[in-house]
């Protein structure tokens, strides 16, 4: 009777391979961070401390800002790597630099910056981190690699080459290794140590990232002051934008519909005066008045569309975005999955954001088709617009996408652009809201 192989669970080969690969990747990353720490941290720590010591002599004022900015760079690098590897975003705690740029070898600017840096608590936390990271980072980073190498040594070298080793040679817990039994035991020890290396790699990397996060995350105070700065900036931008928008509407009404209504009234007045004397002229004036009223309506329609599109009021984001897609000269695939309607301001911001990105697609991308995806997850409205055009789009200061990002900022909204040369381009916008 053939043995049914299905009864035996298949050897989880794929799982094991993944596990081994993950271990190797984590070990490599740990090693990279450790080397980064040693190569960067030690000199920077020395330079910072020396600069602090040299402050009374004046030289420190020149070197300290350089050292501390380099420390910030190194710290940001750690924040980025450890944050992205371990899935815990570590925000940067530094106060935004106010206005003027730092100039090297310019004494007043250096003194100003030294004061700024030394009164920033995150500077001192950075230095503390350096102090801790030099030994701890080295230990945590090198340990998995060392375990793996030592494990391989036990698995391969000891059982094969023990007779060639120096007298007194030992491995693991066995000193000395002087018999085949001892060599065989070393093999098992080595296997254990090797596996321990793989097992520990990711855990140690996580531990390292936790320590880094503890020391490098902004304090509550730093976080709040950053947030206040952010809110102040976006609030003033929002107020400016609103004022500009009202001015635009006023101007459009004044120069457009209002002027046309005056003209219509004038023509109607003339027509009634001419009515008996010169019916032909009166008829022509009436036709003119009719044409002017159609023009005024068209202008008002455009204006209303720019303020709050009727289709958005009538159908919400879903219908309004579909209507936008239909207006585009290329085929657009629309995929919308929203559990409800966002608050009107968010809805409107989302609509105009999609409208602007689509206008960009039509204008610049030379795309043959595009797609829109609207979804909601984790308290965020997600709007993605993609096209199969030439790509290579950039967020330029003062450009359309930059302006769009600014307009989303008061809602704590974000915009990410992914546009490699050759395409495709995707713009992902997220707006926090409650549905």
């Amino acid at each position, binding site marked *: 009777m053939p043995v049914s192989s299905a009864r035996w669970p298949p050897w989880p080969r794929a799982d094991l391979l993944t596990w081994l690969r993950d271990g190797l990747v984590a070990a490599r990353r740990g090693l990279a961070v450790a080397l980064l720490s040693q190569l960067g941290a030690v000199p920077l720590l020395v330079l910072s401390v020396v600069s602090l010591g040299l402050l009374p002599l004046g030289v420190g004022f020149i070197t300290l800002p350089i050292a501390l900015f380099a420390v910030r760079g190194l710290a940001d690098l750690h924040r980025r790597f450890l944050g992205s590897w371990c899935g815990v975003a570590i925000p940067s705690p530094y106060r935004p630099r106010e206005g003027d740029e730092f100039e090297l070898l310019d004494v007043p600017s250096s003194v100003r910056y030294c004061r700024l840096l030394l009164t920033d608590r995150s500077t001192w936390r950075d230095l503390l981190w350096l102090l801790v990271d030099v030994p701890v980072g080295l230990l945590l980073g090198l340990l998995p690699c060392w375990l793996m190498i030592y494990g391989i040594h036990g698995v391969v070298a000891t059982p094969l080459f023990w007779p060639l080793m120096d007298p007194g040679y030992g491995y693991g817990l066995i000193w000395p290794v002087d018999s085949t039994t001892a060599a065989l035991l070393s093999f098992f020890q080595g296997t254990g140590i090797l596996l321990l290396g793989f097992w520990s790699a990711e855990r140690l990397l996580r531990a390292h990232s936790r320590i880094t996060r503890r020391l490098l995350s902004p304090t509550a105070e730093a976080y709040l002051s950053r947030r206040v700065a952010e809110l102040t900036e976006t609030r003033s931008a929002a107020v400016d934008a609103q004022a500009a928008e009202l001015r635009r509407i006023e101007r459009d009404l004044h120069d457009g519909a209002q002027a046309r209504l005056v003209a219509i009234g004038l023509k109607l007045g003339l027509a009634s005066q001419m009515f008996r004397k010169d019916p032909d002229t009166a008829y022509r004036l009436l036709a003119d008045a009719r044409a002017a009223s159609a023009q005024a*309506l068209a202008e008002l*329609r455009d204006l209303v569309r720019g303020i709050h599109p*009727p*289709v958005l009021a009538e*159908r919400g984001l879903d219908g309004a975005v579909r*209507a936008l897609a*239909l*207006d585009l000269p290329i085929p657009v695939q629309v995929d919308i999955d929203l559990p409800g309607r966002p608050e009107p301001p968010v809805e409107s911001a989302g609509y105009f954001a999609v409208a602007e990105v689509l206008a960009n697609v039509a204008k610049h991308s030379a795309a043959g088709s595009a797609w829109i995806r609207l979804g909601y997850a984790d308290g965020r409205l997600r709007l993605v617009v993609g096209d199969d055009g030439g790509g290579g789009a950039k967020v330029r200061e003062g450009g359309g996408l930059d302006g769009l990002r600014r307009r989303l900022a008061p809602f704590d909204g974000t915009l990410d652009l992914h546009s490699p040369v050759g395409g495709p381009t995707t713009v992902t916008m997220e707006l926090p809201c409650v549905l």
Partner: protein
Amino acid sequence: MRVVIAEDLALLREGITQLLTLNDFEVVAAVDDGPSLLTALLEHRPDVAVVDVRLPPTFTDEGLHAVTRARRELPDLPVLVLSQHVEHLYARELLTDHRGGIGYLLKDRVFEVSEFVDAVRRVAAGGTAMDTSVISQLLQRNSTKDSMRSLTTREREVLALMAEGRSNAAVARELCITEKSVSKHTNNIFGKLGLAQSGDDNRRVLAVLAHLNF
């Protein structure tokens, strides 16, 4: 011809009532919100209805909803939808049932009284009346198609008017040409677009709109 009007702005409601009455329509009901529109349509079963898209109580597309529901009960109820703005999206929804008897026009079109009355009559007779702006946008979208490029300027003009739902006679009047040359142009257009000719005006319109991926 019996007509039901739905428009929430009193001034406009009276204006349209007056306009239609002067042109030999009998206005059997003039209502100002969605629910009473539905009731009026089902009760009076008019020859045609003239309906504003946005109506109370929700001030959303209440008018469209009432029309859709009424046409579920009375499939051949002809409806002319009026709006301050036209949306390709709504036009497409109105035409999905391919039954004809549908119009969708900007409110401005009432300025051209005779053309407007013409459109109401056409819809009442089971025809189509699509707003010029919807059609021109549609043609714009399709302008890169090979079949569209092969048309002459005059043929494109004829196609646009035809897509709005006008008869050969109306097209001839609009372009100041004879009806005979209009039918020559339509023959050419149908040939170039690869569409089967049809004597039925409404089916002709729908074929053209389908070709344009309406």
